[in-house]
């Protein structure tokens, strides 16, 4: 499985370099770290995924001495590694550009949001194809707008308020709880993706 992880990292070399540059620009402009980190991590995860979808690469991977479980698991490990890498880049970037230490809470929230998103993105991409993610995100956005306009008009304010509470709280148990919960969600998503991939026809 180590080879599959290595492959995903090596193949993203160029993308990583371009993204690192873009990250510097965003940080220099003072865009929110959480937001930048979330977008960059998700772009890297979906990009890794879509590379494998081009030209029957899944047929190649499944003909090599790997199990389907390993192929799926490597993607989940790579997603964690990329997110950690982005968090590290944010930390270093903020230190260099603004001379400030990024709050660990901000990095943690960023990573939690990435893992929540990845928990849905990965099984969806295994079931369908990552190219439909764009369509799915438009549908999800539409559903969100419908919710805001009909049932919960102050949803935006509620979310903002909750995020503020989380960021300002000093109770560590809240963070531990969130990490455990998101860990469980990620683990569950991992198992679901393996199930989906094991039934896949090439």
């Amino acid at each position, binding site marked *: 499985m180590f*080879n599959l992880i*290595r*492959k995903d990292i*090596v*193949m993203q070399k160029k993308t990583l370099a371009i993204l690192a540059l873009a990250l510097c620009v965003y940080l220099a402009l003072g865009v929110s770290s959480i937001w930048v980190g979330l977008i960059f991590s998700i772009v890297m995860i979906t990009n890794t995924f879509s*590379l494998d979808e*081009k*030209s*029957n*690469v899944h*047929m*190649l991977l*499944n*003909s*090599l*001495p*790997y*199990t389907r479980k390993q192929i799926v698991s490597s993607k989940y490990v790579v997603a964690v590694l990329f997110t950690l890498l982005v968090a590290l880049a944010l930390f270093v970037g903020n230190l260099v550009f603004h001379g400030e230490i990024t709050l660990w809470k901000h990095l943690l929230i960023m990573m939690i949001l990435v893992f929540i998103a990845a928990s849905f993105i990965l099984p969806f991409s295994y079931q369908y194809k990552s190219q439909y993610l764009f369509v799915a995100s438009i549908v999800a956005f539409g559903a969100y707008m419908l919710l805001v306009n009909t049932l919960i008009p102050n949803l935006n304010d509620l979310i903002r308020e909750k995020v503020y509470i989380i960021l300002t709280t000093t109770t560590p148990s809240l963070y531990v709880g969130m990490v455990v919960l998101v860990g469980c969600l990620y683990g569950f998503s991992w198992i679901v993706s393996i199930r989906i991939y094991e039934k896949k*026809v*090439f």
Partner: protein
Amino acid sequence: MEPVVELNNVSKSFKGFTLKDFSLTVRKGFVHGFIGGNGVGKSTTIKLIMNLLEPDRGEVSVFGLSYKDHEKEIKQRIGFVYDEFVFYEHLSLAEMKDIVKRAYKTWDDDLFYEYVNTFQLPLKKPMKTFSKGMMMKASLTIALSHHAELIIMDEPTSGLDPIFRRELLEVLRSLMEDGGKTIFFSTHITTDLDSIADYITFIHNGEHIFTKDLFEMNEDYALVKGELELLDEETEQEFIGIQRNSFGFVALTDHKERVEDVFGDTVLIEEPSLEDIMFYTKKGAADYVQLNS
């Protein structure tokens, strides 16, 4: 003779296509050709052997092992070539090699470069710029560089020019000289098999029609040409498939000696090509369906 691949009563259904109770044995140390028209189940069978598909019913074993418990072990020993492009388009052959080699315990870089030289393949060009022939050579180079015991190829010669087809057959022949290796390949270009195959399996509409050794086929099969008056309900029983025209009939039999006894000098008996065997077997099956439906 030790079986390398065994399919026992395997069935697999898709929308509009079914592989029915398919059984097949590929023996160690031989070249086994897999023939049939387009869309009759050749690729499905190969995908079942490669565990890219799971059978609805029946068993698949490779090297006497099942995929359920020995997937990695089996795939370590197989080299594969597909008709489709399965590599990362933007990578060069050298970069692709770096990814694939790490998957195999027995990868041999020297052997890889030997094939690269033989086939005159560019190492640094993105693989998406490769022609169909170059792509096939690259696939073959990757498939042969880890000392695989079983080489599985899906239509390796389709879309290739005759010169490269010969080159490919030459490579396969020299591969077999080392002994211990087994080649299983599907094709609809039957002339490729005449010179290299030991065994032939014919598949039609998802059904196993026959598996025979090439020598046995030359002994048993014959193409019979004669006048229409010679055909009646009884004599027609001697043939697998018959084609009639205003000049007479051409038919295929799989018991040459008997036909020689029955018809004597009244007919012309010729050696059929594999294509003839495929054509008349298919025709016979179609006529049978017509008669009985």
